[in-house]
């Protein structure tokens, strides 16, 4: 049946710069904010913006991701006529077809899009933390009569060299892209959110698919080709909180942002709910000896230590006389007694032995603790040389 706009959510990225966090886990499935996974923010934006026809393109280690999104129930995207569809690479009579780039992933699912005969296609990525009403960008796209509209945000000038910069006229029409410029003319960076007129995008995708030297990427290939042909490309200026959690540093920072009393991204905003699963753990118990300040704590936690500037996902237990600062503890973490953690990220179900001290100094990257890390580096004996080093560090 006909739909005005089909949303294609790219969730296949490897997320290499997240290192340990994306080992066997697609980046959109990485836990975030004490109860969510990164993709929950984008999926919640979809339902809150009434974008009901969503294809989610997966490729890399999708098991947890597929289990998490299912058919979209937590986001009310389990629908009879459209709703959420997972689009994984598949084999057909011509053989197997992995997705080669962001544009190629869409090209390989042209049949899916055509089913809904849409006027517009919106392309999103499942990698960012933000609240955005996609109805507004669609609105602008229609009003400006654009062929493509790119959502953009003003970034600090010193960071412009990390982004794709859009140079526009006063009316926001784009006349130039600069990919990670050394000396940017502008601080308006692309957020990787695009709206296209489908008939035009389809033509460009088919053309791009024939090019042998293309990376089949929107930012590198398709959009520059459209610009070169003089198509109407507009920027949509987004104002609000937006964070690319592409590195362990920025992932950690985004969590510290959540602990500020007033950031423009509230997960308890009744007008813009963030949806996710719930695993039905019991209520959280702060015991007689527990204390929590400037922290987010989820169900099933038992806290007998001191928590400060930290995020505890569900079912984390902290024993007495331990101190957790500026840290992020994933579901099922067990922290023994007399432990000190500062600027540490602990992965799911990891147990931190008693008396462990792990501190990353402010100029270091936060420490990511996995089971292997515990086995290799945190021997429970007090006399381990590494442990000594750590302690002295503190």
């Amino acid at each position: 049946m006909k739909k005005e706009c089909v949303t294609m959510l790219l969730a296949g990225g490897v997320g290499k710069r997240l290192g340990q966090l994306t080992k066997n886990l697609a980046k959109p499935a990485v836990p975030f904010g004490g109860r969510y996974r990164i993709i929950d923010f984008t999926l919640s934006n979809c339902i809150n913006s009434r974008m009901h026809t969503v294809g989610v393109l997966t490729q890399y280690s999708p098991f947890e991701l597929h289990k998490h999104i299912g058919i979209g129930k937590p986001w009310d995207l389990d629908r009879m006529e459209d709703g959420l569809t997972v689009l994984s690479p598949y084999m057909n009579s011509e053989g197997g077809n992995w997705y080669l780039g962001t544009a190629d992933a869409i090209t390989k699912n042209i049949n899916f899009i055509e089913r809904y005969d849409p006027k517009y296609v919106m392309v999103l990525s499942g990698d960012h933390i933000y609240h955005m009403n996609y109805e507004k960008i669609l609105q602008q796209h229609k009003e400006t009569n654009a062929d493509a509209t790119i959502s953009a945000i003003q970034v600090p000038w010193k960071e412009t060299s990390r982004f794709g910069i859009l140079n526009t006229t006063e009316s926001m029409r784009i006349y130039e892209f600069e990919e990670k410029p050394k000396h940017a003319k502008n601080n308006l960076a692309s957020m990787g959110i695009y709206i296209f007129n489908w008939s035009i995008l389809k033509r460009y995708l088919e053309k791009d698919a024939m090019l042998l030297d293309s990376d089949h990427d929107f930012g590198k290939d398709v959009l520059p080709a459209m610009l070169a042909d003089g198509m109407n490309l507009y920027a949509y200026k987004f104002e609000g909180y937006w964070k690319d959690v592409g590195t362990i540093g920025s992932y950690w920072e985004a969590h510290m942002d959540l602990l500020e009393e007033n950031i423009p991204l509230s997960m308890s905003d009744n007008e813009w709910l963030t949806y996710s699963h719930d695993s039905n753990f019991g209520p959280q118990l702060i015991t007689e000896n527990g204390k929590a300040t400037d922290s987010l704590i989820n169900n099933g936690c038992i806290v007998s230590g001191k928590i400060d500037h930290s995020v505890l996902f569900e079912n984390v237990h902290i024993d007495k006389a331990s101190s957790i600062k500026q840290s992020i503890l994933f579901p099922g973490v067990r922290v023994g007694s007399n432990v000190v953690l500062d600027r540490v990220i602990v992965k799911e179900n990891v147990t931190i032995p008693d008396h462990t001290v792990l501190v990353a100094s402010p100029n270091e990257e936060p420490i990511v603790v996995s089971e292997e890390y515990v086995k290799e580096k945190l021997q429970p004996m007090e006399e381990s040389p590494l442990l000594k080093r750590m302690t002295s560090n503190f």
Partner: protein
Amino acid sequence: MESLMGLINLEHEHDFLNELTQTRCPAAVPFAGRYRMIDFTLSNMTKSNINEIAVFTKHKYRSLMHHLGSGVDWELNKRHGGLYILPPQENNQSDMSKGDLKHFCNNWDYFERNKSDHVLISGTSFISNMNYQELFQHHLDTNADVTLLTTTYNLSTEHEHCLKVDTATNGTVTAITSDKNNPHVFSGIYIIKKSLLAELVEKCIATYKEHFFIDGIIANLHRLNIQSYQYNGYSFMIHSVDSYYKNSLALLEMNNYKQLFPVGEKIYTKISNHAPAKYNTTSNVSKSFIATGGVIDGAVKNSLLFRGVKVQKGAVVKNAIILDDCTIEENAHVENIIIDKEVTVSKNQFLKGSEKQPFIVAKQKTV
């Protein structure tokens, strides 16, 4: 294979919780930070592979229906089986039945359609986290007509009104009484053969009875093979404001907490979309439950805070049970108190009940 269906019978549950049961039946009363009373029985049934469950509602069941919804949160929204809420039927002139027998009578087709050979019947006042399969196995092994789930409590005035059970050494029930000096308490949960249920219901209706357990089971005690199955895990019964308050605060002891909420043995409830609880710079919380959606800037001690409760700077909450979406404003003090949903306690307000008799604030008020 012998199988079991579930029935949660609310017909004879009393509205004991004063303000808390003014607009809702006891089964729908919020409990333990994020649940309603019925969640425990319902989750225990689900975990015991009972996947077809009927609920006899009596009155004030709108919030119960809203809570249960489609049953999806208890995995009961299935085409095979599922959750059936059976409200009372309007009067039918030809129908002379009363009490829970009226429910059985009006809904007998439901029991007939079901293929299970046994029915587990429960109220919602017995709180535990258990699997009924052992009880069922005992019922089958002893080839009982009826098997009662029993437990033993210290003698106290708290269980004075519960039914008590006398048994022979082999576990056969010899008497069901109200003996105040008997610590062997009937939990209100029992399994009965469906064919026997049909037979006893019919007899009770024919003789104008109105309480199935009293008139159908107790009255026929000596003609039936009634067994008891003793449960020794953590449990308690709630049938007064006093036991509600006392047993709620008792959950703040780690030992009790871990018995009612062992990791891996989940109690299901209606899913909400609240953010994790937020503790701000001036928060000072100890020995308390804080549910999701809470934002704490003040002091909370020995208390249970349900979802979405805000405690502002300088406020003090002590020995309190505060239900969903309340706000305790700056410098207010609440102590020995139960506050129903969506109440705002204004700045500088001071409210204190006695430890023996907590003060109850009805819902949606500003005080």
